């Protein structure tokens, strides 16, 4: 059960601040809802995690005649992007927000239209506003140069616009303008069937597909009071670790391209490819689409598949060890990583960093440890933590976590062999009406939180997806003070998805 505090909108900042101050809570997700049809105005839900993992929700409702509330960001900086999203998507104004610019909606979106309001028809296209406003602040001064990059980048990567301001090669400020791949997935989920929601959740992001599908399934299972069996839960955990492995191994390889170490890119790329072909062989899909479903899983891992995973995981682990050792001995590469792109511990903590980026800056956050899910039990995974906060630390966290995952996969396979044949998916009945639930999964990039609300007949009325790529808010802080040519390296060390963030 989630502890709930209902407060007035005016009391939100003090209630949230008190929870953080008195009970060491941290914000895991914040979402806004349009509940005008239920006569409750706009809903604001701030969900916190306490140090031992329990969740606390602080909720307020806003009068639609006066759609505003005092910004919690003023006392809790981690809320900054969430509250900007609420302003864009629902038209509820966070009063006194230090940065009230648009976040999701771009310059040419007309004023006064808010996609997540229930009276907005998401199927319609909207004319472009001919009077766009400029959302970037920029840097001005003698000798200051601005370098605009993107949204279309030079490599095979996702789109986003970066504006660097600095003198010579030294970057003073990075402004990132994202949400180019915003596809309206949260709007599309309104009124969608449970099954349609699953296929949307798998396609929020290709590289975190299974994590998102499992987080969605967890939220649905809570609302349907359905409990996946042990066999299904172990299969979920095995495949989630395989997802982490192909990402972590591939991310180490791609880091080499940020420093033009092509041999490293190719050798690591072979290992990533081998892990993805392992996914295809045992689960039928290189990105593990179509594997999870609410209630359990859609695929079994039979004895032959388990043996294939076991043998490949041993072989690839040994190859990966040799590869990492060779990288660590390549001083011209490693020296580029030391002290580059440092993310300060206090900043990471205060702004709500998650995943590899948080752990490399000494902030021990890992959903697998704090809220164990699927087949994981408390104590099975401990967060891998480093304190330097630089590119090297983020690389080494990934390396160490990959080795943990190789071992964890084999441990889970042994458990799976002990479990007899069983129904792979528990039935999903009607969802409880007028409730909300959430699912949490540690994706390869960090904490993914899927917040789901139902209406009077148990239909999905709101699907809020907070992926680990919310870490994008932190990247500019790690870039300031570095050299412009180090940006690709810093960016690849965070390795965030645009698609996960933009939705």
């Amino acid at each position, binding site marked *: 059960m989630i502890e709930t505090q209902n407060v007035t909108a005016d009391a939100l900042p003090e209630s949230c601040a008190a929870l953080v101050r008195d009970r060491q809570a941290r914000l895991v997700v914040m979402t806004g809802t349009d509940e005008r049809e239920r006569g409750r105005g706009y809903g604001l839900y701030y969900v916190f995690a306490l140090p031992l993992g329990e969740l606390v929700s602080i909720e307020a409702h806003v009068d639609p005649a006066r759609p505003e509330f005092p910004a919690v960001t003023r006392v809790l900086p981690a809320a900054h992007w969430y509250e900007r999203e609420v302003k864009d998507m629902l038209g509820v104004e966070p009063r006194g927000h230090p940065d009230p610019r648009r976040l999701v909606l771009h310059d040419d979106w007309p004023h006064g239209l808010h996609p997540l309001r229930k009276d907005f028809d998401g199927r319609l296209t909207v004319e472009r506003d001919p009077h766009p406003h400029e959302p970037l602040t920029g840097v001005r001064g003698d000798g200051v140069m601005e370098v605009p990059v993107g949204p279309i980048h030079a490599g095979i990567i996702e*789109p986003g616009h970066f504006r660097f301001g600095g003198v010579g090669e030294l970057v003073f400020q990075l402004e990132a303008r994202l949400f180019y791949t*915003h596809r309206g997935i949260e709007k599309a989920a309104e009124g969608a069937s449970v099954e349609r929601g699953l*296929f949307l959740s798998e396609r929020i992001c290709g590289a975190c*597909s299974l994590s998102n599908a499992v987080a969605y399934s967890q939220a649905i299972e809570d609302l349907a009071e359905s409990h996946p069996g042990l066999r299904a839960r172990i299969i979920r955990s095995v495949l989630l670790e395989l997802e982490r492995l192909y990402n972590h191994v591939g991310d180490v390889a791609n880091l080499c391209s940020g420093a033009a170490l092509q041999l490293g890119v190719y050798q690591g790329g*072979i290992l990533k*490819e081998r892990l993805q072909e392992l996914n295809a062989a045992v689960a*039928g899909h290189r990105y593990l689409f179509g594997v999870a479903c609410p209630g359990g899983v859609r695929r079994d891992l039979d004895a032959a598949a388990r043996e294939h995973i076991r043998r490949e995981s041993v072989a690839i682990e040994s190859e990966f060890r040799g590869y990492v050792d060779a990288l660590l*001995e390549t001083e011209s590469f490693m020296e580029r990583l030391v002290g580059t792109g440092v993310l300060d511990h206090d900043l990471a903590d205060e702004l709500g960093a998650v995943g590899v980026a948080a752990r490399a800056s000494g902030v021990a956050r890992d959903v697998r440890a704090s809220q164990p899910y699927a087949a994981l039990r408390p104590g099975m995974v401990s967060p891998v933590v480093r304190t330097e906060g630089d590119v090297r630390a983020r690389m080494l966290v990934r390396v160490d976590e990959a080795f943990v995952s190789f071992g964890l996969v084999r441990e889970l396979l042994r458990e799976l062999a002990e479990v007899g044949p069983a129904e792979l998916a528990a039935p999903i009945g009607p969802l409880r009406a007028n409730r909300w639930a959430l699912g949490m999964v540690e994706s390869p990039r960090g904490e993914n939180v899927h917040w789901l609300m139902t209406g009077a007949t148990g239909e999905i009325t709101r699907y809020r997806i907070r992926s680990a790529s919310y870490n994008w808010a932190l990247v500019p802080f790690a870039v300031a003070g570095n050299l412009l040519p180090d940006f690709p390296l810093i960016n690849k060390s965070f390795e965030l998805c645009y698609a996960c963030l933009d939705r």
Partner: protein
Amino acid sequence: MLSLLRRRLRLATATSRWPVVPAPLIDRAQPVFDAARCDLNGACARVCPVGAIGVDTRFALDRARCISCSRCIEVCPTGALALGLVFAAPERTRSELIAPPTGVVARGEELAAHVHRVLGRSLNVRHLDAGSCNGCDWEINATTNAVHDIQRFGIDFVASPRHADVLLVTGTVTRNLEIAARRTYDAMSAPRLVVAVGACAVSGSPYPTGYASGEGAASILPVDVFIPGCPPRPEAIIEGLLLAVGRIVRAR
């Protein structure tokens, strides 16, 4: 660096032998259809999350929209649909993608016979993400790894549309990328080709068209080749690029 080189010397050749040897069999390929067992009951069309199946007078699968979720196979009461094992082939027109799936076709030999022409010239490709989930983009990336090694076909990726012969488009063309996508195409010099990669770019599926998401590359650009799949395998992407420049002759 020396240790990386030493390691390289110990590694065997990683590059796949495709297309001489067929791509690995995968069971999340698009479904195969057996007309003799179909009674047009429509169960498949009702569960398809992307509206890719029609059963009015005969079964028709829109391979452009299909995301290989295999729900149709799970619900088919007559066993007319089965898991496909071979990736869906790229085509030159959108309409060629709407057909009863033809089953297992060995294309490896056919492709290999024409690969020798590849060496005659090079093809420069510019990737454009027009609003995808990044699955297709990672698969395009995988074509450049040592295993798929797209460069062995004379194909390479370039940083600027000014240098490109082909625009390789992923994603639905979102509202926020439409202008950038048009500008990228406009920056290319003629002759230029457009290849759409994946269900989103090919048809707009699986996201609903609306305030944010568009209807795919063909809604704003002249597309020369459509590569279906969610996402297409690296081999399918390479095959689509070879098809775009006439390096593959299809036996029909």
